């Protein structure tokens, strides 16, 4: 039964990871522990980069992989592209096992890893595309035409004959995307595509990624730790931390996850320490602010309706008893950063600027 369902998933998704795990083992010679100062001749360490990760990418979908540094995002991308072998589990691309059919799969995947480094700097963008085209078995008229189309598509037309070393970081990143697209792959894997770019370049690259999926039907996997990029770009987001895929949901669903639980209450005066000590245990005080409209407190309540209702009544009752006047109460729409911090177990700072208020 499970096998049958899995086979259906493999066929349904362009990329499918089935319980993929990877742990890196490293040995450090003449190691010195920074905390204890203890020295050892050899110190073996291991880092879990993927722990039974399972997810799929649909055709024409932008999937985002969000996580802090060292969470395992790049390793996941490398495992899909066959650059890193999983310890266990299987990666399927177009229904084929990456380890068994690597050569066939490579022509279907385009990867951008730390994009600005990929290109050959003494060559121009057009020459780079011709070079990498040959490496990927694209040649003749097809290659020339495709290279020009890509340069035009990405907006490097005026720089096509300028040596790469003279291009800006954003332009190099655009070229790296073109290099990944030269073999016309169905799947594009982008590792931190907008890191270190200015707003304009970042915007331009995001637009091109959207165009690639919406107009050309390609599947895209974007790894990032930029919440705005993920929220703006991705149809679905997977949050990964310490190699574990914590959640993988459509972006809207992910944003809904905590929105029913956060409330902001504006009071007539500042909250005195200890006044909310007798709150119902299911109410968590997240933050107290002094805004232009007056003192505000932000609280989190449980999600089930009954418990949420009880918690809110208890909170209002406590405030009434302490003679606070309630000026307004609002349910807050959380942003991805909040969701991310909640799910990764970090303490979220509820930033007014990053949240949208709902009635």
């Amino acid at each position: 039964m499970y096998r049958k369902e899995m086979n259906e998933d493999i066929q349904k998704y362009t990329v499918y990871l089935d319980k993929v795990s990877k742990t890196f083992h490293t040995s450090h010679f003449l190691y010195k522990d920074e905390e204890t100062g203890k020295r050892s001749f050899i110190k073996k360490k291991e880092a879990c980069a993927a722990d039974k990760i399972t997810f799929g990418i649909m055709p024409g979908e932008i999937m985002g992989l969000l996580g802090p540094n060292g969470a395992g995002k790049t390793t996941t991308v490398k495992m899909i592209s066959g650059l890193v072998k999983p310890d266990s589990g299987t990666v399927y691309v177009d229904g084929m096992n990456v380890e068994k059919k690597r050569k066939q799969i490579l022509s279907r995947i385009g990867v951008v890893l730390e994009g600005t480094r990929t290109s050959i700097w003494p060559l121009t963008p057009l020459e780079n595309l011709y070079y990498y085209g040959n490496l990927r078995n694209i040649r003749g008229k097809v290659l020339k035409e495709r290279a020009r189309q890509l340069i035009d598509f990405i907006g490097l037309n005026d720089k096509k004959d300028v040596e790469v070393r003279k291009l800006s970081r954003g332009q190099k990143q655009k070229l790296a995307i073109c290099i990944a697209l030269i073999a016309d792959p169905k799947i594009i894997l982008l590792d931190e595509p907008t890191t270190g770019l200015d707003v304009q370049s970042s915007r331009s690259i995001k637009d091109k990624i959207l165009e690639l999926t919406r107009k050309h039907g390609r599947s895209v996997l974007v790894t990032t730790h930029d919440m705005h990029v993920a929220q703006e770009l991705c149809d679905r987001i997977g949050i990964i931390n310490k190699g574990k895929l914590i959640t993988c949901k459509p972006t809207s669903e992910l944003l809904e996850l905590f929105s029913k639980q956060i409330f902001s209450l504006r009071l007539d005066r500042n909250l005195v320490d200890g006044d909310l000590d007798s709150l119902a245990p299911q109410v968590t005080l997240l933050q107290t602010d002094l805004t232009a409209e007056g003192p505000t407190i932000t609280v989190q309540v449980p999600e089930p309706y009954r418990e949420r209702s009880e918690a809110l009544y208890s909170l209002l009752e406590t405030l009434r008893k302490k003679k606070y006047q309630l000026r307004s109460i609002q349910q807050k729409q959380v942003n991805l950063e909040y969701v991310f911090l909640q799910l990764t177990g970090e303490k979220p700072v509820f930033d007014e600027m990053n949240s949208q208020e709902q009635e």
Partner: protein
Amino acid sequence: MNTMLGFLLIMKAEIIRGWIITRRYWFRTLTGLIIGYGMLMILIAGFFYSQPAIEKGINQLDDPTRATNYILGFIIGLFAFGVIGMFTQGIQGMAQTGVLEQLCMSPYGLVTNFLARAVVASVTTIFYSALMVYFVVISVGGKLYFDPLPVIVLLTLSFINLLGFGFMVGGLVLVFKQVGQLTIIVRMALFALAIFAREEFLQQGWLVSALMHALPITDASICLKYVLVKGQISETGQFMSVFLHPCFYWLCASCLIWTFIGISLFKIMENYSRYKGTLGIY
């Protein structure tokens, strides 16, 4: 067939890339050649004059045949140094620039890619080395016996031999990037061996002889010197084709062994580096 096509395509891409860079940075290429010539002359002179007996050294420099012998050794050594460096320093550099991972994404595989790159790079090196040998030999008044067929065969075999050895150390560098630094010692040793390799080395007991034959440059260097410097004249003063020289057979055997070991190990290490995740690490 597909691999062959891929090999040719990559070679074409490499030739175009090399040509563009040479043309675009022509001044650097030209000054490189001039500096190379100057350095080689200084090395040759320094080498001779640093001999224990200076007078003997001067006499040796005045002996064009002996000088030519060393000059050729220097060039063969440089060639060996370059071919192996392409695998060691080359892989390290490519890992640093991210090109290595893009090469791994080529459906032809790393071995075909490196083979094509090495062939193109070596043809260019041989061309520049030939120019250098010519000018330096003329400068010291020496003479080279250029017999095209043996020279081409020997250069090809020497190249294949070094390629096999290069693949072996390259494979190690794929996983252990620090090995790249250590291989400088190996490259220097091969460089020195190419200069000093003589048939007399092979007559100093079976252990030394076996070790010398096992190294990828000894027989190649002896054979090339035999053709280019001695004009294929044996110790008896008779003409004897290099194809009948025992070192030639050792060279052929060495080619087969090193190619097999090199490519097999490279493939194993490529696989292992994907398991260890060290392809993009530098």
